[in-house]
């Protein structure tokens, strides 16, 4: 059987890039690694271009262990895009706070990217597991890089132990499913499940699977690690973790469950609905009292994961398309917010919300980007987040979950409250110091682009909605 390697060009490119960067970083003097970072960025942009042209490609490789389809490509674009932004935003930060490790930062990001893009294309449990671990281990290392090394290593060990624990559970689930379905191919397993099979061993396996994926996308109650790790990790890593890793995990979750669910909706749907509601409610509630902005964003991220899950609940083209749209938008919003945090801490600012007092006067640009990003997260028009939420609500209401729309909307009002608390600090309070904040050009351009995209997609979302709809049809 001929293997069409052209389908995995992006993965190969990323892998090659990772290795190249690793080697070059050994050669380049410690203080000149900035160029390397931009080299990485350009490499990833190349990958992005390739992915963009490959979006319609479809096919399987290695006996079905690897699936290339529009859905996967969409998620890959999302992931690579986040990695690019994380590196651009992170260069200065890493140079300043984790001096000397820029090369490592770059290639671990690339490897994590590799893990993530493989994950969303996994066609087999083995691929899935390996990709997941590649991603996780790269992230663990990245998390451990932190500016405050002690907090960072605490975050890293927590992340490591908990994700190992959850991988253990996930794996155990996989084996049970394997035992029931007698295959590790995702399609095979799913077809088996879709027949309406409810063998206890299978159900148990799937529960374990849910908990494993739930851990990665930080759905309540599997989210416990999220705030601690987000808070302790270096901010660029937090940013990447919050969008890309969540996105990748969500991608695989969709891939696994989209086929499996129709058979046993009444069995699984209540669980997913409950998890979603818990995620949205708890995420938003607990975000309110947070004083640390990263931690607050961590909880908000938990809540956002809940919103993305709504797309799964809707279980329709519209739902998936909405979820994909939202996930993509979420990348921009979150990156925008974290970008501001990065730029701010580079200028010596702390991570507490009150440190942002009067940011408006010190840098109107950063304040505006932060505001736009947070409001987009809250789903306020004309920012893209609104369209995303609108689509999601529409999708679930179509399925008759009106009460769920009430909950979700209500909670998004709660989220407005704590996002506005940041706005309040930025705009209403007087700054502790008056110095203007200088933001370097790449970050400025990135943040500007992010904001403009958020705004543009909020006002004219058609290009992305069309794409997302087209992609979502993969499943139906």
């Amino acid at each position, binding site marked *: 059987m001929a293997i069409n390697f052209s389908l995995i060009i992006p993965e190969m490119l990323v892998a090659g890039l990772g290795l190249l960067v690793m080697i070059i970083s050994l050669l380049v003097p410690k203080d000149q690694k900035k160029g390397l970072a931009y080299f990485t960025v350009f490499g990833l942009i190349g990958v992005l271009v390739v992915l963009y042209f490959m979006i319609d490609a479809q096919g399987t490789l290695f006996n079905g262990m690897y699936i290339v389809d529009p859905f996967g490509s969409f998620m890959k674009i999302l992931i690579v895009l986040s990695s690019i932004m994380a590196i651009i935003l992170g260069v200065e930060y890493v140079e300043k706070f984790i001096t000397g490790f820029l090369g490592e930062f770059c290639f671990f990001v690339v490897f994590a990217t590799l893990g993530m893009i493989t994950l969303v294309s996994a066609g087999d449990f*083995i691929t899935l597991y390996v990709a997941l671990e590649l991603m996780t281990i790269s992230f663990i290392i990245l998390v451990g890089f932190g500016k405050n090394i*002690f907090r960072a290593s605490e975050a*890293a*060990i927590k992340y490591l132990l908990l994700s190992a624990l959850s991988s*253990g559970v996930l794996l155990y689930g*996989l*084996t049970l499913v394997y035992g029931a379905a007698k295959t590790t191919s995702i399609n095979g397993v799913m077809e088996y499940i879709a027949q309406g099979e409810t063998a206890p061993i299978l159900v148990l396996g799937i529960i374990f699977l849910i908990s494993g994926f739930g851990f990665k996308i930080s759905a309540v109650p599997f989210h416990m690690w999220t705030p601690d790790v987000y808070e*302790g990790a270096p901010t660029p890593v937090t940013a990447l973790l919050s969008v890309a890793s969540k996105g990748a995990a969500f991608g695989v979750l969709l891939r696994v469950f989209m086929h499996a669910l129709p058979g046993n909706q009444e069995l699984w749907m209540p669980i997913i609905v409950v998890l979603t509601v818990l995620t949205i409610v708890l995420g938003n509630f607990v975000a309110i009292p947070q004083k640390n902005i990263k931690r607050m964003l961590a909880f908000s991220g938990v809540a956002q994961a809940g919103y993305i899950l709504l797309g799964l609940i809707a279980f329709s083209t519209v739902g998936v398309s909405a979820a994909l749209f939202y996930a993509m938008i979420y990348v921009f919003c979150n990156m925008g917010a974290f970008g501001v945090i990065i730029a701010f801490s580079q200028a010596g600012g702390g991570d507490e919300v009150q440190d942002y007092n009067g940011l408006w006067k010190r840098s109107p640009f950063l304040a505006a980007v932060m505001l736009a990003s947070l409001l987009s997260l809250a789903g306020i028009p004309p920012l893209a987040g609104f369209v995303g939420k609108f689509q999601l609500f529409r999708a679930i209401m179509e399925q008759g979950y009106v009460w769920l729309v009430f909950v979700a909307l209500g909670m998004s009002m709660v989220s407005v409250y704590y996002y506005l608390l940041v706005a309040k600090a930025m705009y209403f309070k007087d700054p502790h110091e008056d110095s203007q904040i200088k933001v370097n050009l790449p970050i400025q351009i990135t943040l500007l682009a992010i904001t403009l995209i958020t705004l543009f997609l909020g006002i004219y979302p058609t290009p992305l909605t069309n794409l997302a709809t087209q992609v979502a049809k993969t499943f139906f």
Partner: protein
Amino acid sequence: MITLNHYLLLSAILFCIGLYGALSKKNAIAILICIELMLNAVNINLVAFTKFLTPGDLTGQIFAIFVIVVAACEIAVGLAILIAIYRDRSSVDVENLDWLKW
């Protein structure tokens, strides 16, 4: 006669022991080892299923090998981080790891 169920039982017990240990041990290294136990339970499952259910197919066994490799990587990274923590706090007690909370 040792049937599949015996293996599964063993693996389940092992998994639970690992899980219990992971949730109760105070020493981070012990936790790592307990997690290793859980992964071993997984491996037993995989191998047993292959043996009993799909005799001609080695997928499960190959999976097990992947699991072992990945677990090794994880342990390596984990130990590295623990060393960093030990340098700082002279302890790898997970009870003390609560700077980040609430």
